[in-house]
C-alpha cells in the first residue's frame, strides 16, 4: 500500500497525523479528567465505599473550607513567577545576546540543578535556610531579619523554594524567544533614533513575548499545585492547596474531596490562563 493510501485519502492525512497525539490526550488527559469529575461527585467513605450521587456539596465544601489555601497557592505561585521572571529575563537576555560561544555552557548552568532530583534540591534549601545556616546569619547581620527571627518554616522560604525549583522553566523559553530575535530589527530601531531603552521596550520585549507567556505559564501552573515546598520549607500557617489535596487523598482517603479540589484548582488555572492569553493576545503566543 505504501504512500498510495495517503494519496487516495488525502483528506484523512491531517487526522492520521494528529491521531497519536489525540490518542495520547484522550487516554492520559481526558479519561483521567472524566474520572476526576466523576469521583468528585461521589460521597461515602473508604470503609463503606464511595457511590456516585451528584454530590455537588464536595465543591461547595472545598471552596468554603479551604478558600485561604487556594488564595495562598495563587499568591505564592504568582510571587514565585514574578521573581523568577525578574531574575531570569536579564540572565536569558545576556546569554542570548552576549553569550557568544559560551551560550551552550551557560544554558547548561541554568539546567544543571535539574540533574539533582526535585526532592533533594528542596531538602537542600532546608539546610541552606536553617536557623544555624549562613543565609540567616547574613540576613540577620544586615538587619533584614530581626535577631531571633527565622526564614525556614515561613512563607518566604516556600516562595524562595518554588522560585528556585521552577526557575529553569522560566529561563529557557525566555532564552529561546530572545535568541530568535533578528538583531537587525533592533539596529533599525536605533537607526530611527530610538534610544537603547526605547528600542528594547518597543522592539526586543514585544518580540520576546511568546517566551514570556510560555515561561510564566510553565512556572505558574505547576507552582500553584506544588506541595513539597510548603511541606518541607513552610509552617502550619503557610500550607498551600496542594498540601490539603495530598492530605485528603493520602491521609484521609477522601477521594471525592481531593478530586473536587483538584478540579477547582484546574478550573481556576484554566480561567486565569484564558484571561491571560486574551490580555496578551493569542497571536503573540504562537509568535
Amino acid at each position, binding site marked *: 500500500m505504501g504512500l498510495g493510501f495517503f494519496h487516495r485519502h488525502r483528506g484523512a492525512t491531517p*487526522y492520521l497525523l*494528529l491521531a497519536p497525539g*489525540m490518542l495520547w*490526550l*484522550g*487516554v492520559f488527559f*481526558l*479519561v483521567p479528567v*472524566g*474520572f476526576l469529575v*466523576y*469521583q468528585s461527585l*461521589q460521597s*461515602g*467513605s*473508604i*470503609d463503606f*465505599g*464511595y*457511590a*456516585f450521587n451528584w454530590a455537588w456539596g464536595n465543591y461547595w465544601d472545598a471552596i468554603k*473550607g*479551604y478558600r*485561604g*489555601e487556594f488564595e495562598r497557592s495563587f499568591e505564592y505561585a504568582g510571587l514565585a513567577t514574578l521573581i523568577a521572571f525578574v531574575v531570569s529575563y536579564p540572565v536569558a537576555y545576556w546569554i542570548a545576546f552576549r553569550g557568544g560561544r559560551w551560550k551552550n555552557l551557560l544554558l547548561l548552568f541554568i539546567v544543571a540543578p535539574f540533574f539533582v532530583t526535585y526532592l533533594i534540591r528542596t531538602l537542600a534549601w532546608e539546610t541552606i535556610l*536553617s*536557623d*544555624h545556616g549562613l543565609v540567616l546569619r547574613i540576613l540577620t547581620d544586615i538587619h533584614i531579619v530581626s535577631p531571633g527571627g*527565622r526564614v*525556614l*518554616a515561613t512563607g518566604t522560604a516556600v516562595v524562595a523554594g518554588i522560585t528556585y525549583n521552577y526557575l529553569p522553566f522560566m529561563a529557557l523559553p525566555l532564552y529561546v524567544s530572545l535568541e530568535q530575535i533578528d538583531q537587525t530589527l533592533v539596529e533599525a530601531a536605533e537607526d530611527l533614533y530610538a534610544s537603547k531603552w526605547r528600542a528594547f521596550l518597543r522592539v526586543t520585549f514585544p518580540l520576546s513575548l511568546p517566551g514570556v507567556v510560555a515561561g510564566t505559564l510553565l512556572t505558574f501552573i505547576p507552582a500553584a499545585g506544588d506541595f513539597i515546598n510548603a511541606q518541607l520549607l*513552610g*509552617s*502550619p*500557617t503557610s*500550607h498551600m492547596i496542594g*498540601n*490539603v489535596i*495530598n*492530605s*485528603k*487523598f*493520602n*491521609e*484521609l*482517603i*477522601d477521594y471525592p474531596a481531593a478530586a473536587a479540589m483538584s478540579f477547582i484548582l484546574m478550573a481556576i488555572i484554566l480561567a486565569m490562563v484564558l484571561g491571560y492569553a486574551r490580555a496578551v493576545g493569542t497571536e503573540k503566543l504562537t509568535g
Partner: protein
Amino acid sequence: MTDQITRKVFLRRAAASGTILTVPGLLAACGGGGSSPGASGGTTVAKQLAKTLHFSNWTLYIDKKGNRHPSLDQFQKKYGVHVDYREDINDNASFFSKIQPNLSRGQSTGRDIIVMTDNSRYPALLVKQGWVEKLDKSAIPNIKNLIPQQRHPSWDPNRDYSLPWQSGFTGIGWNEKLTDPVTTMGDLLGNKKLKGKVGLLTEFSDTLALVMAYNGDDPAHITDKTFNKAIATIKQAVNSGQIRQFYGNDYAPALANGDLLATMAWSGDIVQLQADNSHLKWQQPDTGGDIWTDNMLIPKGGNVYTASVYMNFVYEPKIAAEIEDYVNYVCPVLGAKEVLLKQDPAIAKNTLIFPTKAELDSAHTIDPNALNNEKYQTEWQNLISA
C-alpha cells in the same frame, strides 16, 4: 483563519471522541468503590510451607549485618523458606493506599506479612473489612511469649489476626545543650523560650494523646468535648507561633541540628539519634506519654501457614533478642530481655527498650473509635495541613 476554524472543529470532534473513550474507562475505574467484607473464618489452612515468604516492613526495622538479615537467614536455614524482605512501608496511610486497590477487588497484594501501626486507623479497618487472614494459631505456640499488656487490643481482642512486631513510646525529646529539660506539655506548648522551635507530630494519635493527657482528659475515651478542647489547645500553640511544623519521621534531623529545641518524639528514634548526639534527651511528659504498636498482619491472599510459622519463629526469645539488639524499639516478646542480659546488657537495661511496668502503665493509648471518626480525622488534617 481557516486554519483556526478547522482546528476548533477538530478539537470539538476530539472532545466528543474523548467522551466515548471515557465511558468504559469510568466503568472500569469505578469498580474500586463498593466492597463486601468477606467472611474470613472457617477457611482451612494448607499446612505446607511456601517456597518464599513475602514480608513488607518499615525501614531499619530488622537485624542487619552487612547486606544480610541474620534472623531471616536462620529462618531460611531452619524451614527452607526464602524471605523476600521488602522495606517498602514509610507511613501507614500511603502504604494502605498502595494495597487498598488490590484488597478491595479481592486480589492478592503479593505479600504474606505486612506491618501496620495500631495508632492509625488501618489495622482495625483491615480487620473490619475482612481484608486480613486469620492467623493459624496452631502453628504459633510461641504466642505464649507475648507480653500481657499486648494480649487484648480492642481492635483485635484475641489476637486472631495480628501479632506485635515492635512497640514504641511517644514523648518529648529535647537538646540539652540548647535548652533546659522540657518534661511537661505545658512547657512544650507555652514556654516562650522555645517559640518557633517546637515540633509536634503529624500522627493524630501521638499528638492528641499527649495533649489530652495534659488537658486532664482520657485519650482512651475521646468525646466531642475533650477532642475540641485538645484541638483548641493545639491551635492556640500554632497561632502563637510556638509550633514550627508538624513532623513525620523528619523531625529527627531538625532536632539534631538545633532547628528544633524540643519536639514530640518517638523513643526508638531518640535511641538511634543518641548514638551520634549524646545531648539529645527523651522522656514521657509528666502527664504521660503514648504507646503504640506495629502489628504483623496477613493480608488477604497471603500464605497463612508460612506467615504463621514465621511469626512463631520471631516469637522465640532468642530470635526476638537478635532483632531487638539492632532495632532498639520496645520488644513485645517475653524472655528476650533475659537473653540480652547475657549478650548485650546495655540494651537489656535500657528502659526505652525494655520499659519498667511503671513506664508502661503511665503511657496512654488512643481511643480506637476516634481513629475511625471521620469528623475528627478531617478536623485534624485541616489543623496540620491548612
